[in-house]
Structures are given as C-alpha cells and as structure tokens.
C-alpha cells in the first residue's frame, strides 16, 4: 500500500484550564488520541456534533495551533520535526478553507492583495503572483478582472469561491475544508459543492472534509470518521458507516438526520440528551448509550479494526449479520 498523503498518529490537543480553581490539572482535552490516515486522491469526511473537537483537530493537524502530543505526517514526513521555515514550505501542500469567508478575507484588502499574500510568503515573484491569482480565480469561476475589488463587493458564495481560489493558488495537494458551505444558501451550496468536485478531479486533490452536515458528507466522502468528545468512535467506508455502522452513536447520529425521503418525524417527548455527563473512566458515550452496560462505565474502548478497515471504539458494537 502506498504512503497515505496524510497520517495522524495519536494526536492530542489540550488546552490549559483557565482559572486558579479549575478542576482538572491536566487541562481540557479537546482532541484525545486521534489516529487516521487519508489516502491520496480521496475525500475523507470528518463528522461530529459541535464541540466534538473536529475543528480543533483540523487546526492542530495543519500546525496552525500545534498538537500537544502526537504526530502528523504529510507524505511520510513528520511535520512536528520541521523548523518554522520548513513548515511554511509544507503549508503550500496543505491548505485550509474555513466556514466563514467573511472572517477569512480581510475586508480592507482587495482580492488581489489577499491572494498575493500567501504567494509572496512563498517567495513567488510579483508577475508570477499575478498570473497565478488570475488562474486560480478563473478556476473557481470568478472573473480575474475583478481581482481589484474588495470582499464586500462579492456575494457570500463568491467570497467562498475566492477563499477556495486563494487556497488553490499555491498548488496544494491536500485541502482541509472546514464546513465550507454551512454559511451559504441551499442553491449556492450546490454550486460550491459542484465546484469542489470539479476541482478535485481536475487538480488531483485530496480533501479532508469536516462538517456537521451528515447528508453532505455522505454525498461527498469516500471514508468517514465519526468524532465524539475528542475521539474518533468509528471510521470506515461511507457505505459501511451509512448501512452497517457498528457504534451506537454513529447509528443514532445518522438516524437523526432529516432526509428528503422517508417518513414524517413521529411526535415524541424525549428528555434532554445533553444532560448526562459520561463517566470519567469508561466509554465517554456510556451515559447516553442505550446499549451501555456496566463494563462500559469502567473500560474505555480503543479504536480497533472490526474487519475490512472498518474501525470502531465500542465494547458492544452493533451486530450486522442480521442485516441491521
């Protein structure tokens, strides 16, 4: 098997707990021992609910906010060992597109200036910068003649195209897409998704696609990792995750997604599922899990291969032989 384009090994990101009287001395673990590999040319989906650590993970693996523990390898090269200059060189291979283009584009800079910055950092000469900026804008469907304009002169969808163009201008091989269409209207979302699909095949890109929108990830991704409270609880091919998920959380998550097909939602009174705090020791999903047993509260399950590259972290994984 070839070397994966991106490999993350036991990555941890802790934040020092603020305040003198904080409870945990070790600090808050936003990401707690996450490992996965992304094959070149694939789309790897990372899903989870808010606060599960997916954005923290994205920032840590790009060394925008370096991990506390663990390794990130890009085409086999560990990023942790690189100098600041070395890391800057590597960044051109891995770019990120954020959810909110308004935050990502400086309102006081023209599109040309915003896009030129990254290239200038890489030492690209001015004339070449112009050419690459124009080419990248062309690629995402923005007229290069508009490069002199400012962000407020563009619509939300166009701004997101520009941030994608900016990421592409340095010729990256991996794009980390952190909720890139969540702020956009339905009709514009589809435009951007189609654009991303086109770009991927034209430029032989690899995507790490982070989203809370399960329908979208199910549509785009080849493999899906499901995060819960800082951990990956299940990882497998999209088909496996959708049709034969092993972790109760994954099942619940995908069962909750509203779809354009299927029945109306049945009225039902349910308590607040957020209320339960999972035990410190055992599985962090145990308190919410309908299958939880005594053992789940004392043993923390490791992510292990359940066969065929389908990984799950559960002591009592669902059984699929009955076609569940």
């Amino acid at each position: 098997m070839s070397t994966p384009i991106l490999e993350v090994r036991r990555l941890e990101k802790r934040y020092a707990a603020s305040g003198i009287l904080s409870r945990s001395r070790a600090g808050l673990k936003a990401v707690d021992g996450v490992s996965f590999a992304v094959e070149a040319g694939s789309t790897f989906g990372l899903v989870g609910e808010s606060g599960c650590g997916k954005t923290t993970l994205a920032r840590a693996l790009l060394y925008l906010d370096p991990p506390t523990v663990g390794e990130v390898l890009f085409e086999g090269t560990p990023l942790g060992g690189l100098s600041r200059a070395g890391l800057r060189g590597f960044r051109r291979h891995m770019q990120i597109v954020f959810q909110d283009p308004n935050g990502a584009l400086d309102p006081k800079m023209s599109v040309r200036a915003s896009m030129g910055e990254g290239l200038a950092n890489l030492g690209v000469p001015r004339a070449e910068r112009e050419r690459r900026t124009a080419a990248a804008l062309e690629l995402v469907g923005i007229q290069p003649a508009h490069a002199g304009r400012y962000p407020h002169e563009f619509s939300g969808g166009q701004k997101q195209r520009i941030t994608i163009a900016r990421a592409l201008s340095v010729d990256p091989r991996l794009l980390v897409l952190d909720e890139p269409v969540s702020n956009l209207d339905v009709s514009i979302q589809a435009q951007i998704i189609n654009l991303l699909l086109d770009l991927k095949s034209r430029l032989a890109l690899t995507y790490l696609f982070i989203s809370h929108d399960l329908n979208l990830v199910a549509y785009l991704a080849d493999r899906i990792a499901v995060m819960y409270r800082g951990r990956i609880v299940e990882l497998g091919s999209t088909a496996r995750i959708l049709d034969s998920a092993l972790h109760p959380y994954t099942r619940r998550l995908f069962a909750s997604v509203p779809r354009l097909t299927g029945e109306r939602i049945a009225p039902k009174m349910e308590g607040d599922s957020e209320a339960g705090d999972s035990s410190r020791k055992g599985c962090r999903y145990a308190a919410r899990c309908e299958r939880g047993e005594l053992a789940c509260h004392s043993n923390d399950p490791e992510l292990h291969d359940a066969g065929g590259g389908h990984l799950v972290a559960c002591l009592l994984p669902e059984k699929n032989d009955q076609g569940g």
Partner: protein
Amino acid sequence: MADALLSIRDLAVSFQGREAGGSRPLRGVDLEVGPGEVHALVGESGSGKTLTATCVLGLLPVPPARIEAGSIRFQGRELLGLAERERRKLRGRRIGMVFQEPSKYLNPSMRVGEQIVEALILHLGLSRRGARARAAELLELVGLPGGRQILRRYPHELSGGMRQRVMIAMAVSCEPALLIADEPTTALDVTLQRQILRLLLELRDRLGMAVLFVSHDLAVVHGISERVSVIYCGKIVESGSRERVFGRPLHPYTQALLASVPEASRRGTRLAAIPGTVPDAAHVPAGCAFHPRCPLAVEKCRLEVPALLDYAAGPPGRAPAGGEAGASSHLAACHLAGRS
C-alpha cells in the same frame, strides 16, 4: 378556506430610506394556515420568509418598513390596521414565536423563570406564585424535568438544547392557537434537532395549535410539515401538501431546490445547482422573479408576473390563491406549470 386560522393575502412590504433604497422584500405573499396544521414556509435567505412571520406578529419596524398592501386575517379578524394595544394582546397569547438562536433570543441577565412568568402574569392574569407553578409545569412539558430548579437558572447556565426548550416553553405558555417557529433547529446539532422537532409535533398534538415552520432546510421541512409553501423573492411560488410539493413539485424553483440537496443517494452524480444568486429585494427581476435562473424560462416569463393558481385537479382553475384554496390544493405561480 373559510375556516383558515391564518390567512395572508397579497401582503406587500417595502423598505424606505437611504440604505434600503425603496426595496420591496414582500411582493404579495399569499399564505393559508389551517387550525392545527404544521405549515412550512421554505425559502433562502432574503426570500422574505422571516419578514412574513414578523408581519404576522406585528413586529415590523415601521418606519423604515411599510405595509403597502394586503391583509392578514387571524381567527377571522383582520390584523392589519388593528391598534397596537390589540395586537399586543395577541402576541404571546394567541400567537407564540420561537426563534433560531436561543442563546441570543433569551435575556442573558434575567432568570429563565422570570422570562417565562412575565407572559403568564400579563396575559392570563395569574398570580406570581401561580405563574411560577405553571412555568415549572411548562418546563416539564417541554422535556426539562426538575423544572423548578431550572426556573432559577440564567440562560448561560443551560445547554443549547435546554435553552431552545425554554424558548419553546415560553412561546407555548399561554397555549397559543398559532406557533411561529423561525428556523428553530438550525443552530442545533442533528440529534438535538430531531428531539426538538419531535417536541414541536408532540406539543402541536397536545395543545392543538397550528405551527408555521419557517426554514431554509428542505430535509427538515420534509420531516415535519403537512403543508409546504415555497417563497422566492417575496412571493409564494408554490404551495401544497408535503406529498405533492416534494413528490410532484410544479415550480422550476422548487424542483431545482430539491435537486440541489446533497444526499447519500446522489453519490457520484453532480448536484443540480441553480445558477446565479438570489436577487436582492431592491433589484427583483421583472416578470417571474425566478426567470433569470430558470432553465425553462420563455419570453412570457420575462414580461408577466405569473399568478398563483391551483393545479390540484390538473388544468389551472383560475382560482386566485387564498380564495377557495382547500386542503387538497396545489398552488403554483409559473407560466409553465403543469405543461411538462
């Protein structure tokens, strides 16, 4: 339908002033909500869906906004032109409202209990003690057991899902006949979203109220609604039962929206994206507002505003919307509807 709970006809709203530049965000909205019905109003941002809800509540900021034409009848009574005092008596009493982001829509420096209790005292004339007891019951009703303790909390001490439940408890506290829910689950995670949707349906059944569910999310609307109205550029373009609108959409905009939703079943195919962007309210195209983005548009679409007609029985009967539109109607505003 004569016994409609809420009947909006030809509602037009404009904004005056330097910035708005005489825009018309609502250009004649027609909408009927029957008693006890879950009616979804679907549209993209800027389509006028929230503004429509704002008009029903009577919270339109006048000026800069101005209601140019139309009528809003609620329980047989015309709301437009009603004195502010009278409208206030309806708000929170007969018409409740739930908003998108509970963290912003709850007063951060006031205990949750006080925020629920004030409407009960005002509208139902309960004593403070009685109102508190009722508020605790309401919290239990929306799935927050141990309501008494929660009454004493401040919004920031609650989780996002709990806050939305509090918001809902507030909105249904006086058992309104109509609950307007404006993107009530958009800010929530999927598992919570489902819980809240189920809760809204459960409350509808228990309290017998109608729900006007305002959303941009077609999948959510598919999950919760009984009737659906699609709004584009301040005009309803299609309205009908959930089965009809999702199963046999008549308007090219509805069709395009449905085709643009990513789902696992569409893997490997390109999404049918709608070209262009939603026009802003100051520059709505002439004729059918959707024509510049419509793949089927013909000359007539550029020139003539299509009327909202009933296609339920096949050929369009010339029954203007809101008129005799029964529960089985399927309205569309398109010159080409039903021709395919």
